């Protein structure tokens, strides 16, 4: 969980480019992932996240630029790299009628030091599905199996590509817990997602990717602080003097009034505290009070001018 940059870099991507025919999938991407960190590539579909990740995995060769993983070249040393990484691919499938245990057993046979497959299935909540065919698993169970396959070789780096896309909220939360578990085991994780909530909950640091370029990199908190420093308080009061008092709170940017409801926007970490102090000092009685904190979604909107879902 070290994002301070003091730990050793495990992945270094420097100015990679990749095009498919006339389409530029990745036009300039650079980032570094440190040991034990969960790093997210976030951006809309088609931003170049998956291509970037596949270049790091050694599945694709970048047209330009340099990638280094665990000190190795993912293309030249692909087989060495494959033994030390675990991969979950976006929208991958297995043979329809392969049984869960057979997939785990096959994967385990491919690596020099696999972990215990039964124990892994147990940890991922798939023990009672050992004999089920892949085609009969639910979406969440399939993803858990893919996580099991990605962890079977006790990898140092785990790649998770759009891990929870298409899952219901409950399965999604269960998968998030599993990813936290992976980090607690000291593994480095590189993941892609277009879900800002997922990135905020899981990632130590994220790179925002749009049109094949990295726009900014930082921890979710840093990014929010850097690009969306304003805080919003929404409250309801019948006090006639409220508007004036609230406008006097230091670093207030705007006070919007709709009937009895006020929306107050201001800058800085202490802004909410200062609004509360103002209410207390002026004895303003409120019937509703909530804060709206900006999140990565707002950062994305600010940086790109459009929502990630557009």
């Amino acid at each position, binding site marked *: 969980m070290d994002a301070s940059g003091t730990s050793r870099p495990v992945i270094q991507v420097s100015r990679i480019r990749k095009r498919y025919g006339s389409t530029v999938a990745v036009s300039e991407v650079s980032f570094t992932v440190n040991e034990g960190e969960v790093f997210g590539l976030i951006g809309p579909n088609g931003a170049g996240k998956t291509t970037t990740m596949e270049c790091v*995995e050694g*599945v694709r060769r970048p047209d330009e630029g340099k990638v280094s993983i665990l000190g190795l070249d993912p293309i030249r040393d692909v*087989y060495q790299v*494959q*033994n030390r990484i675990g*991969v979950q*691919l976006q*929208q*991958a*499938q*297995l*043979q*329809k*009628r*392969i049984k869960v245990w*057979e997939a785990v*057993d*096959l*994967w385990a*046979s*491919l*690596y020099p030091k696999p972990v215990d497959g039964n124990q892994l299935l147990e940890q991922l909540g798939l023990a009672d599905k050992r004999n089920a*065919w892949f085609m009969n698993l639910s979406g969440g169970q399939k993803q858990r199996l893919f996580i099991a396959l990605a962890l079977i070789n006790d990898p140092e780096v785990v790649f998770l590509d759009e891990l929870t896309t298409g899952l219901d909220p409950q399965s999604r939360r269960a998968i998030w817990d599993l990813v936290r578990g992976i980090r607690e085991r000291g593994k480095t994780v590189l993941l892609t997602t277009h879900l800002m909530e997922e990135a905020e909950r899981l990632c130590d640091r994220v790179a925002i990717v749009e049109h094949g370029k990295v726009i900014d990199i930082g921890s979710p908190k840093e990014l929010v602080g850097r690009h969306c420093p304003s805080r919003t308080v929404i409250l309801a009061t019948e006090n006639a003097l409220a508007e004036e008092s609230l406008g006097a709170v230091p670093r207030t940017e705007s006070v919007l009034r709709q009937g009895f409801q006020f929306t107050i926007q201001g800058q800085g970490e202490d802004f909410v505290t200062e609004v509360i102090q103002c209410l207390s000092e002026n004895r303003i009685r409120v019937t509703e009070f909530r804060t709206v904190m900006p999140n990565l979604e707002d950062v994305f909107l600010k940086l790109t001018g459009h929502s990630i879902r557009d």
Partner: protein
Amino acid sequence: MLRGLWKLTWLEIKIFLREPLGAFGSVLLPVIVFVVISRFAGNRVTPGNVAATGFMRVGLPVFVSVLISLSGVLSLVTIISIYREGGILKRLRATPLRPHTILAAHVLVKLSLTALTLALTAVAGKRYFPAHTHFPLIGFTVALLISTWSILSIGFLIASIVPTARFAQPIGAAILYPMIGLCGLFTPVKALPPALQVVARALPLTYAVSLLEGISKGESWLAHWGDVAALLCVFAIFTALSTRVFRWE
């Protein structure tokens, strides 16, 4: 290099047999065809009826073997395109499995099932076979495996070019089945019009049929080295072509 080959092959055989239609079409159908035709034709086999005896001894086994072989190739085309479309090939490739190991496993699966089907046919059809005649089953099996192996390379090329899994079966059938008409199975190649003879000589199935017929008649391998060489050439050419155009995703 071969890590995972046997495990993957065995796994793919099991998975294939779990697909009821696939298992029926590839393994049981040829056996049923052989038994049904044998029941009808077997009654006519009398010491004097040379045509019927020849049909039972050579024609029918070769015909059924060609069926076994082509349905194996067709099933390979379908499976590879489904695996590609579903991202299964890509998923397997992101493991230490070498790409050629994955493809070799599929070839081994088809060859094993070809041998299994032939064995089942031999067991089920034994009692219909003309009495007091020897059938060189082992040599015939080897000949069929060489033929299937060779034609599988064409299957890989077809699997490389079909756009989606949905087209795999019809395109594969459209390329493979017309060969049956000209390969000498029904009309000897020498009896075909000259232009069609040229076409027939370009078809790998023609050499497969010639080899299978020769071996089932008890002719020597030496007499058919040309057929074997032609089948190996087909294998070399089509394997080289498919390694150039094969797509994993």
